[in-house]
């Protein structure tokens, strides 16, 4: 193991696997599915169990892998799984249980077109699945949205940190395109895995039997017969979620300045496409900028609200028929009109299509500005 920095050309999926080894993950449990199979393939090829001691296991199904994650999370280990849309759908029950027990765990979702088995081409139709959750109960998960291969790599480190800091599952929501494309990546240096003593110190709640002489045994269950106790647990979790919303919001502004008139909001691959669209529109003199949420939950409500005080037309670009658009609408607090742009079902917008959608938005905005009943006079 060398500790020097590496500049390599990697696929997004490969970057996730290599980053996990280097960030000192203790285990991976997963089941192959296009377009994220390279995660498992790269882990199998790199054989981290021989170097860092990380466990890599191909489970028999997605249900098994999320429940392995649940079990490992109970012991305070840093573990992750990865899957694509239908696989993540299967994992929702386990995810809800993990959230209920306030357990750490990282879930990488490399989205494809849906619903159902859908296509194997890239898609962003899993915004609701990741942000609002398909599992039952009052829970949230932190959702990170990388938009480049380098960020896929960095997200694994950030997720490892956040999942223990807040004791909640973290979802890295990516898409097939970032998973499959290659870019220049600077991999992080190797970080040793935590020792049992470090885990005991960091996770006094863990059911791992470490240091039992000095403490009471820990018990973990999501089942509670007394609704008053359950409510208390929910309230405690809600208080934590509010704190996360206050502290962990992350976003990036691209070419947004004081005289920006139009705004694009996009995450993941759509933000890369929109970046080019912004460049093309800026060349023609349109004052447009882009906001990219780096965390989808917590959502950057405050900055969108502030911007929509002066920017009245927002184009929400996503590769689905409109999911994040509702969060953007809420965040504007009715101060701006939000329009949708994007393809779905595995098709991906080109920058020119975003430009065309922008133009029709600008036209519509102009027609909306006519006084009501103008044509009647």
């Amino acid at each position, binding site marked *: 193991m060398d500790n020097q920095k590496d500049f390599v*050309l990697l696929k997004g999926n490969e970057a996730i696997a290599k980053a996990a080894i280097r960030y000192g993950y203790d285990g991976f449990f997963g089941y192959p599915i296009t*377009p994220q199979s390279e995660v498992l393939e790269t882990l199998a090829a790199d054989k981290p169990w021989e170097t860092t001691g990380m466990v890599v296991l191909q489970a028999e199904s997605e249900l098994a892998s999320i429940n392995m994650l649940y079990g490992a999370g109970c012991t305070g280990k840093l573990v992750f799984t990865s899957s694509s849309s239908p696989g993540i759908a299967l994992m929702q029950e386990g995810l809800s249980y993990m959230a209920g027990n306030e357990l750490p765990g990282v879930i990488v979702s490399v989205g494809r077109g849906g619903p159902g088995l859908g296509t194997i081409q890239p898609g962003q139709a899993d915004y609701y699945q990741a942000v609002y959750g398909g599992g039952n109960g009052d829970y949230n998960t932190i959702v990170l949205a990388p938009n480049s291969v380098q960020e896929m790599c960095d997200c694994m480190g950030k997720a490892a940190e956040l999942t223990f800091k807040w004791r909640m599952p973290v979802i890295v929501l990516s898409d097939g395109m970032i998973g*499959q*494309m*290659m*870019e220049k990546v600077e991999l992080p240096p190797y970080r040793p895995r935590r020792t049992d003593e470090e885990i005991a110190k960091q996770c006094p709640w863990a059911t791992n039997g470490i240091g039992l002489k000095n403490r009471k045994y820990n018990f973990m269950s999501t089942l509670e017969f007394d609704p008053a106790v359950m409510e208390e647990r929910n309230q405690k979790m809600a208080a934590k979620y509010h704190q996360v919303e206050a502290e962990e919001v992350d976003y990036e502004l691209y070419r947004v300045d004081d005289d920006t008139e139009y705004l694009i909001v996009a995450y993941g691959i759509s933000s*890369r496409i929109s970046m*080019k669209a912004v*460049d093309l529109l800026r060349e023609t003199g349109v004052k447009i900028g882009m906001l990219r949420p780096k965390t989808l939950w917590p959502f950057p409500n405050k900055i969108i609200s502030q911007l929509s005080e002066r920017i009245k037309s927002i184009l929400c670009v996503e590769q689905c028929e409109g999911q994040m658009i509702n969060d953007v609408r809420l965040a504007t607090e009715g101060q701006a009109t939000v329009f949708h742009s994007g393809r779905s079902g595995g098709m991906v917008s*080109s920058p020119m299509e975003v430009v065309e959608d922008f133009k029709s938005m600008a036209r519509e905005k102009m027609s909306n500005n006519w006084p009501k009943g103008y044509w009647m006079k």
Partner: protein
Amino acid sequence: MKSEKFATAAVYQWVAHTRSSKFFTFSFLTLQLRTMTEEIIISGFGGQGVLSMGKILAYAGIMEGKEVSWMPAYGPEQRGGTANVTVIVSDDMVSSPIVSSYDTAIVLNQPSLEKFEPQVKPGGAIIYDGHSIIQPPKRDDINVYRIDAMEEAARTGNSKVFNMLVLGGYLKVRPIATVEDVVKGLHKALPERHHKLIPMNEEAIRRGMELIKKMN
């Protein structure tokens, strides 16, 4: 910005052809200070080495200290079906990995030519393999190049260097990376056990540079 990009590419090309005149060397240097972005589509049959050629080109870009992206058309592909990859090499951060028009299209079969010829930017270039293309490109607002790489590969009895011959031809008309950087890229892209094949590939790149012909 667009026109600058074309100007840079055009001067690059001009200098590559003449390599004389102090005046042009001077303008070459001044223009180079502006940002360069090269958007390339490489398309052909699966098995022709389309994806690996793109990967080697991307690695060469990294060796030049540039930003790169490599976006394959992935899916339920099969041997003999079409394969294509979009490679972007740029001085700035690469924004969108997918684009609707290209600076250069390298087409290695007829369906690819039909699909990508209309998507080449005016002033851009199209490179095709003489053996695989029956009906050559017709556009006159782009530079058309022909390389008989398939024939050369068959003549030397080494069909595996086909894609490196084409890559050599490409680097001749668009010198976005030096042969030395491509070789460095090969060292990174290939596993160690294949490093003994690198001299053969380097030779193929240099041969490809000689083979390419301008058709219009």
